[in-house]
């Protein structure tokens, strides 16, 4: 079984996270994309929105807990306006 871990992070931190995790053997795939968000961060750049990075990590379900904690710690979620991390089951994977 495969699990997706997603993280909405500050602009710039997505690439750092990818650099840190790309060589981790538990990570099956890791991708980063850029977007804008309305509510996650305090600073505003474009009216009511601010730029952010979205990181998607694919892992085996047995490794999901550890990776989720690791990503949450790297995102410093104990601070306000620091982003959000989620975990979602996936049905199938092929590569």
């Amino acid at each position, binding site marked *: 079984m495969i*699990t997706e871990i997603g993280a*909405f992070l500050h602009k710039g931190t997505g690439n750092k996270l990818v650099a840190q995790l790309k060589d981790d053997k538990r990570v099956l795939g890791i991708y980063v*994309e*850029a*977007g*804008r*968000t*309305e*509510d*996650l961060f305090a600073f505003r750049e474009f009216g009511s*929105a601010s730029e*952010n990075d*979205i990181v998607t990590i694919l892992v085996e379900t047995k490794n*999901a807990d550890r990776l*989720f*904690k690791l990503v*949450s*710690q790297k995102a410093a*979620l*104990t*601070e*306000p*306006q*620091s*982003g*959000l*991390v*989620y*975990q*979602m*089951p996936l049905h199938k994977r092929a590569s």
Partner: protein
Amino acid sequence: MAGRQITYLTDALMITCIVQASQADKVVKAAQDVGAQGATVTYARGTGIRERMGLMGVAIDEQKEMIRIIVSQEQADRVFEAMYLAGDLDKPGMGIMFMNDLDRVATYIPDEVMADALKPTPQKKPAKKPAKKPAKKPAKKPAKKLAAKKAGAKK
């Protein structure tokens, strides 16, 4: 790292909605109007319906916006419907949306919100049921018996 704790939220869903470029703002506004906190929007390029519609396909923008919103289970259906209607997704080529269950979500939760959530909820005492009165025996209906007797007498 001492003293740092991650609180996991459960019963959350992620709504993903893909619409034509520049349509995202009105969809996000509709979601916020019915209780969603906010949304994350990224750019994408779409294919499929545009080609299938032939010449009419030129009216569909190839550039897309992908909206992701995380909502609680209680508000999920309401937000989903509001986004669907705002994005005119019932019209061909306007976009697609779907909803996924999330195992868990982690984000910063203010201390006061956490304290409120951890307060034990007062349990309601079950209302006392009124003592059961002995059921009255149904009154005998002699009229029917009489009628039966009469019918029998006729035979």
